[in-house]
């Protein structure tokens, strides 16, 4: 695989504007190369802001979702490539998995790299995986896979239609009140400029009556709720079941799962899932 190495983290504005232009291609295509930024320096002030918005305590050891945020501009950059027919702006983030291989300090410089692949059929379009790694001194310290659904696109193969396991309603033991400015707050710390999270008009354009909060905010907030109950290193998977409209109120439920956690962000009454999360050591 060829690698394109960038000197610095690319801006997302232009790439995102390109990504908003609808693709006329029907076949889901992603670039074959890797995009990499070496020696990325983490910014304490931005991490502190990220922690304030998501509920984490500002520690030397950074949250794994923070490393996802660091790598995200590379996802946007990669799919802004001429070879890509999949557009991130219209794609739906359906699930995410990441592994913290060892605690990562905010003082470490990270080599971040992303690739796209595993294009496969889905009954509503094509699924594509955006994979990222963070290395420190040649050691992989974090890796993540973000799975997006490109609605209406085609991919080879038979749709993998394994249905979601049925969701058993829970009694939430926490209630989060999400304010109308949360989308702007998370845009500031994540850099994700997708207007679907901040503008009612843009949200309507994508079929939502109100802006929806970024799935990765909900993911981060759910991890932050568990905080020190999390193992020192772990893998975490989430399914984004249903977007959360802003402003809104959601419920949270977590249960010990033998050293890990099964957690859910639900409707206020606990009957419908927004996000299902599994943490395993």
């Amino acid at each position: 695989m060829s690698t394109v190495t960038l000197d610095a983290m690319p801006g997302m504005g232009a790439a995102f504007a390109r990504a908003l232009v609808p693709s006329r291609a029907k076949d889901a295509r992603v670039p074959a190369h890797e995009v990499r930024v070496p020696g990325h320096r983490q910014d304490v002030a931005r991490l502190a802001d990220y922690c304030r918005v998501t509920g984490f305590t500002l520690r030397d050891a950074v949250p794994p979702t923070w490393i996802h945020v660091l790598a995200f501009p590379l996802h946007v950059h990669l799919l802004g490539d001429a070879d890509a027919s999949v557009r991130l702006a219209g794609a739906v983030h359906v699930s995410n998995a990441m592994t913290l291989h060892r605690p990562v300090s905010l003082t470490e410089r990270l080599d971040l790299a992303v690739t796209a692949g595993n294009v496969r059929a889905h009954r509503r379009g094509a699924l594509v995986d955006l994979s990222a790694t963070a290395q420190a001194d040649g050691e992989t310290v974090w890796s993540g896979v973000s799975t997006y659904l490109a609605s209406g696109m085609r991919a080879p193969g038979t749709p993998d239609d394994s249905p979601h396991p049925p969701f058993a309603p829970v009694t939430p033991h926490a209630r989060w009140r999400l304010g109308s400015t949360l989308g702007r707050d998370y845009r500031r710390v994540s850099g994700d400029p997708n207007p679907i999270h901040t503008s009612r008009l843009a949200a309507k354009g994508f079929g939502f009556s109100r802006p929806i909060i970024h799935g990765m905010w909900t993911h981060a907030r759910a991890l932050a709720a568990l905080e020190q109950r999390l193992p020192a290193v772990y893998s975490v998977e989430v399914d984004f079941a249903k977007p959360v409209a802003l402003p809104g109120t959601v419920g949270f439920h977590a249960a010990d799962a033998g050293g890990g956690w099964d957690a859910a962000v639900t409707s206020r009454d606990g009957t419908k899932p927004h996000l299902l999360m599994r943490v395993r050591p």
Partner: protein
Amino acid sequence: MSHNAVVIGGNRIPFAKAGGPYAEASNHDLLTAALDGLVARFGLAGTRVGEVAGGAVLKHPKDFNLTREVVLSSALSPATPACDLQQACGTGLETTIYIANKIALGQIDVGISAGVDSASDAPITVSDGLKRALLRANRARSAAERAKALAGIRPRHLAPQAPGVAEPRTGLSMGEHQALTTERWGIGRTEQDELAAASHHHLAAAWDDGFFDDLVTPYLGVAKDAILRPDTSVEKLAKLKPAFGGPQGTMTAGNSTALSDGAATALLASEEWARENGMPVLARFVDAEVAAVDHPGGDDLLLGPVAATGRLLARQGLTPNDFALIEIHEAFASTVLATLKAWEDEDYCRGLGLDGAIGTLDRARLNVAGSSLAAGHPFAATGARIFPTLAKLLHERGPGSKGLISMCAAGGQGVVAILEAV
């Protein structure tokens, strides 16, 4: 039932100037870092500790349960209870006394005392007028009543309020109060600068010796006290302009503590618990005393600890010579110097109700590993910085070595405590 309350150790983060490397961190963040460092150092992850007592002087209203929230963010068992205490700059020592007393009474086996302050993240509140109008609107039962309440808001109500630095009853800042004391006790510029230089040199030497290796955990890329200036000197300090006491004043930014950010913790237990759990035992908590002066009536604001020291030594039958080491919190260099002069002053001590002068201190025993002028002074953290530091210093000097801590605090208060090496 009486138990020996002993100091097992402590942990803090390096202190730093306000607006510096911890500018983005909250009290919650700072204290969690210090506490988790302590938990890691003594293998307490998942342990239910009897109680954690902490506090902050500059505290946001939303942090009403600051220490308990920090416990929930830490690796301690979530079943660990906590409370917040506050006694101005005496907070970190008062929390330690609280925990030591509970251990001595057998109410808990093991506890953690703590203090934290962020001058960078000081609470900004709304004016009293705005607050009252909003509360009235909140209580209103009709739209008309609510509108009437909100109509009471005036432009002057909208300015945000920074936390007060002045004594509420005198309107003088702490530095201005201390300038009066400096003048009254005839404390000169050179002796203040000498004390400040010694503080920096002592702290620098302790860092160089690795003394703080088991007392400090790095945070946000800061591995060492960031205010410390190892290369400062009396000559360099002499060049600074007066900060308090007018153009002829002797108090400068160099011989006054800087506004600081930081957090500190101390681990205490009954001697039995410490031995059963294979923990080091540095020193035994002996006794403590608090006192206050009538500064609205003209008394020296920061000499509250003198009466506390006199009463405590009388109760214990001790004199300054019985202490191997003495820690006097360096709010200002002149506070320490005025305190020592007051100890020697027969009339002043009798005026406090003591039987006579407390005595003279051998200066070689004072703040031997540096103190607040060099380390910085995140208000509530300082007591919890000094306590384990002194316990370790005494332990190095051998069993039976006694140490005294003297801390001045806003409101004309003083907190003092005695430790004895085990």
